[in-house]
């Protein structure tokens, strides 16, 4: 049981990364971006392309760091993939969503178009890499550390937790202390007042997509390191992402973190009682329960 909770925290921290991006985008641009899961896949596959493609041609050595299942190639690929997906997310907004917004399309129209964008990303991945599951380092021995309480954990998983915590701290400091971070929070709070105050909301939107995309890419890569890469991985994450976002109150990044961890733990613990294939149903049930009992989420106090 303790072990399932620890695995749940690992899965949950990955869900949380995605949910934070989703929540940011929802809070500022106010629509449900169904393509967010597939941005995660895109991040994972861009990193794969770097690790097995570009970086091996350049000649970056393929060794791994001691007990960890990746090496220098991944260290280089990780930030590059985050940047690439950030640009992809910004371009998606420029090409698609911004046009719809200026035409006065409602949130439903935007959500549907994001569904289309999700399919396009997934199909591009299918065409380029095929439908099979792949690994960053196939044939790696997965070694375990034995912790007290009978917990077996891979060094990779500890690293995942550290990376998520680091990214979250960075985001927190960015939102609290920088000019753009404050402008983002202000815009999420009240778009009209932000315009009155002379905040350049166009730039805020670009930053929001950039950060959301980068975090999604990070989540995708971390899941790829923890489990495997699959073209449908992001799509399968969509329900946990939305469940975590709604649970933590839409637009609240701290809520998204708590929500992600909760959903992750619930999913993993459920495998003790249910077949693992029902994991997604668990996230879905939690989402429905929250919507019925507390539609504004655990941190949603205000009437808006």
């Amino acid at each position, binding site marked *: 049981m303790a072990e399932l909770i620890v695995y749940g925290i690992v899965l949950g921290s990955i869900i949380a990364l995605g949910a934070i991006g989703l929540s940011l985008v929802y809070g500022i641009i106010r629509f449900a971006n169904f393509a967010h899961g597939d941005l995660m896949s895109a991040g994972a596959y861009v990193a794969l392309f770097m690790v097995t493609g570009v970086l091996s041609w350049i000649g970056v050595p393929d060794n791994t760091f001691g007990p960890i299942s990746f090496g220098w190639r991944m260290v280089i690929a990780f930030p590059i993939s985050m940047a690439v997906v950030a640009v992809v997310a910004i371009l998606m907004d420029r090409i698609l969503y911004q046009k719809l917004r200026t035409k*006065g399309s409602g949130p439903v129209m935007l959500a549907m178009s994001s569904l289309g964008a999700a399919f396009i990303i997934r199909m591009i991945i299918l065409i380029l890499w095929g439908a099979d599951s792949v690994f960053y380092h196939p044939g790696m021995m997965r070694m375990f550390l034995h912790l007290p309480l009978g917990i077996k954990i891979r060094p990779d998983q500890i690293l995942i937790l550290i990376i998520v915590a680091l990214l979250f701290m960075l985001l927190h400091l960015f939102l609290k202390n920088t*000019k753009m971070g*404050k*402008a983002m*929070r*202000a815009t*999420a*709070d*009240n778009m*009209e*007042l*932000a*315009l*009155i*105050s*002379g*905040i*350049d*909301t166009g730039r805020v939107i670009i930053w929001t997509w950039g950060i959301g995309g980068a975090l999604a890419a990070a989540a995708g890569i971390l899941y790829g390191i923890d489990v495997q890469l699959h073209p449908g991985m992001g799509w399968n994450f969509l329900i946990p992402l939305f469940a975590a976002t709604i649970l933590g109150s839409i637009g609240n990044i701290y809520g998204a973190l708590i929500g992600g961890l909760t959903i992750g733990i619930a999913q993993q613990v459920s495998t003790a009682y249910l077949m693992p294939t029902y994991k997604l149903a668990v996230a879905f049930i939690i989402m429905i329960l929250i919507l019925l009992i507390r539609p504004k989420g655990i941190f949603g106090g*205000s009437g808006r």
Partner: protein
Amino acid sequence: MNETNDKPLLHIEKMEVVYHNVLTAVQGISIEVRENQIVALLGTNGAGKTTTLRAVSGFLGIDDAKVTEGLIRFRGDEIQNRPPHLITQKGIVLVPEQDKVFDNLTVEENLQVSASVRKDRTSRENSYDFIFNYFAVLASVRNRLGGYLSGGERQMLSISTALLCNPLLLLVDELSLGLAPIIVEELMNLLKTIRTEQGFTVLLVEQNALGALGIADYGYVMENGRIVFDGDPNRLRSHQDIQEFYLGQGERETRKSYREVKQYRRTRRWYG
């Protein structure tokens, strides 16, 4: 009309505003605001006061409304139907009626967000002192979230953030709304003081005619989307209709009980 200055800072000429292409909210109104004046725009609910302010500040586009006829001139430039951020850059800053402050940001962050619009660093640093000079209360709650402020503090913060945008023309929508009379009086006087010391111009939209006329240099009365009366505060105050319908004085002395008070003892005529 007031003939002290040659050209008005803000000149609304025969402006008509139409919502959703069908609903006319404001019909051919003309308003002049001269430099360093406080001009009050009075009227009841739905008279078109807020619409007029939103037309000047550029927010009609967001409401799916448009200035269909007439002009808005600010320092000679036509600004009707321009987007809000360009109008803010020109020096027209709105203190809105609702949602005045960012609820999830602290008082200090609210001020910083506004101040960050300023280009020059030196004036940004000085600006904090002058805000806390006028609104000492804000200094004591600087780390509190905007959502937890009292109505008066919210209004002060809202005015402060507007001041940090370096306004030439401050548009204030319902300064008195939901506030205790004593705070309204304090804020009105403070607004006049700040106006005099900082040297900007104010267009004040108010239902509370008494308070607004106390500080205004000139006033307009709006009804059903039209300007029905205008003049300096003394002229407005002495008008019978304004006394009766806005200041609530009327024939009160002769009233014996509430039963005798009819909704309207006579219709408004607006002449004289």
